[in-house]
């Protein structure tokens, strides 16, 4: 990844009738970046991708590609290719013809096309499938062909619209590694759309969390997970405890009546804030060792860990722990200072939009 801005979206606004889909969106994508647009359905992530791909025109704003304004360029004139959600293979053509489609349009030589088909099939581990028809392939295989069909054109950017959405869990995980490998081998920019936070965390260099037509946070997977900017991001990325609290003073926050030391500074004095604590960051200890105490109300075995709910100071705390505390037992709750994330309460209209929908 370089710092060179390959694509720049400036003040993009899009609405269908009265329904606003994107409101003044600004975003840039760097060369060789694996950027993921992440959000629930209807957050505008797919529309953003379609605007970059040229299938949708923004009502206002500009799409800049390598310094040139491509806002009104049709899709066939753009140096990027798309992998569609449900593969969108040409069902009346063989696999080889599908892959060759773009190259034949560009009038490449027969030998070149043959080479490219071979190369692409090898890249997606489907050698020997040249003469099969798309219908005879499984979903995962069809998806790989869709990727092969796109990358033979040597695009500078590959757009992927929830490409793994239709696959089952195991296959989806395999394909995630496959995509990371592909990206490294090709050395091109990937823009990936998904609503699956795990997919986003696994593959991305940069995650753009979107909700209700606004970008909520842009950052690396670690930043998004560890330092969510607001309650929506915290809740959308993994499980978390989001609790109303008071920021007493620098490095001290009052949560449900108990003072917890933290590492944050600069939120003022006695100011209402939201705190985010990841369930795996909560330590369950003997009642006398905890900052607050509570009672275990439910216990579920999740394989890697136990998921417990602890009722303490009027709040149901979600806890992930490898230690087992049976239902009904009294426990103490402790959190390391750097595991408490403080967020300002939403103030402006923009920020209100990010309030949880549930």
């Amino acid at each position: 990844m370089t710092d060179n801005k390959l694509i720049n979206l400036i003040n993009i606004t899009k609405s269908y009738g009265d329904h606003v889909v994107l409101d003044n969106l600004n975003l840039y994508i760097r060369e060789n970046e694996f950027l993921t647009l992440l959000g629930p359905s209807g957050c505008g992530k797919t529309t953003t991708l379609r605007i970059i791909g040229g299938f949708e025109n923004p009502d206002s704003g500009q799409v800049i590609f390598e310094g040139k304004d491509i806002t009104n360029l049709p899709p066939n004139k753009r140096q990027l290719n798309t992998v569609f959600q449900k593969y969108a293979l040409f069902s009346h053509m063989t696999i080889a013809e599908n892959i060759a489609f773009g190259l034949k349009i560009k009038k490449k030589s027969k030998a070149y096309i043959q080479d490219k088909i071979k190369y692409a099939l090898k890249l997606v581990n489907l050698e020997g499938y040249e003469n099969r028809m798309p219908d005879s392939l499984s979903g995962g295989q069809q998806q790989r062909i869709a990727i092969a069909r796109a990358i033979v054109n040597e695009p500078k950017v590959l757009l992927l619209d929830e490409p793994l959405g239709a696959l089952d869990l195991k296959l989806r995980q395999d394909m995630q590694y496959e995509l990371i490998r592909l990206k490294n081998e090709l050395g091109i920019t990937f823009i990936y759309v998904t609503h699956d936070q795990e997919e986003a965390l696994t593959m991305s260099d940069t995650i753009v969390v979107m909700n209700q037509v606004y970008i909520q946070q842009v950052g690396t997977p670690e930043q998004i997970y560890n330092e969510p900017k607001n309650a929506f991001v915290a809740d959308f990325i993994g499980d978390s405890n989001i609790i109303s609290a008071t920021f007493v003073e620098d490095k001290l926050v009052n949560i449900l009546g108990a003072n917890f030391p933290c590492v944050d500074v600069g939120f003022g004095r006695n100011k209402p804030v939201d705190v985010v604590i990841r369930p795996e960051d909560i330590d369950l200890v003997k009642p006398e060792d905890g900052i607050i105490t509570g009672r275990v109300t439910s216990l579920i075995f999740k394989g890697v860990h136990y998921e417990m709910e602890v009722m303490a100071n009027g709040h149901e705390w979600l806890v992930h722990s490898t230690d087992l505390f049976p239902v009904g037992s009294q426990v103490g709750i402790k959190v390391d200072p750097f595991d408490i994330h403080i967020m300002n309460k939403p103030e402006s209209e923009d920020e209100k939009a990010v309030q949880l929908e549930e």
Partner: protein
Amino acid sequence: MKIIKNVNKSETTNEGGLHLSQAASIKWLSFPYIIWMIGFIILPLIVILYYGLTGKEDNFTLDNIALITDYKNWKSLLLALRLSVISTLICLLLAYPLALILRKSKMNSSSFIVLIIILPMWMNFLLRTIAWQNILEKTGILNSILRFFHLPALEIINTPAAIIIGMVYNFLPFMVLPIFNVLIKIDQNVINAARDLGANSFQTFLKIILHLSIPGVISGITMVFVPSLTTFVISTILGGSKVLLIGNVIEQQFRLGNWNAGSGLSLVLMVFVLLSMAIISKYDKESEGNSLW
């Protein structure tokens, strides 16, 4: 039958999830139709086959079949073939662009246009054709309008042109609907994918949309061509006694009580229908697998 099945392939395969017991009980529901089919399709066919291959004394003969070699009959068959090919082509040329537009238009307006296309079918076929007779007559509506503007009158009625107009008018919906049905089922993302891979809109049409719509075109052609080829009502009303199609010849034979001759000619016509359908579906199969690069 096979061709129409093709169009619905995507629907039927999706509904294959019925339990066996359910499927068995549902099978009983087809019995009324099977009885209908035997009574009104299979038995009459056997009767026609019998009459067509026998003479007045119930003796086996091919004379009825051979009637087609009679100059008058052969001419009427060729004319019927020519007129139905022409009207099928006109229907195709009118219907395909219309279906394309319908596909692109917003859902509300497209269903409105489909309604307008189907609307004439709510009126009786005979009435519609007689209405055309009134329009095209020597002193009919069209010529009255022309006279009003001091333009020379047209002599369309009782010519092949009048019959073609009648065929196109009556059978056009049967071309539009199947084509529209396949076009609307084409995934927009498939079209987007072609554009994404560098095809301009014309190339996308030629290499993707046209190919994927062939089953609808085939079914439309069949549904226009076959009734056009066998019609005698349109040619009687709009062609007068001057233009005889094979359908009129057969009808006359039956009216004269000459069941054997009528059946024999019907069998010949049926062979031509089957032949044309075979040619069409052969083209269908060829285009299905390999693209026309």
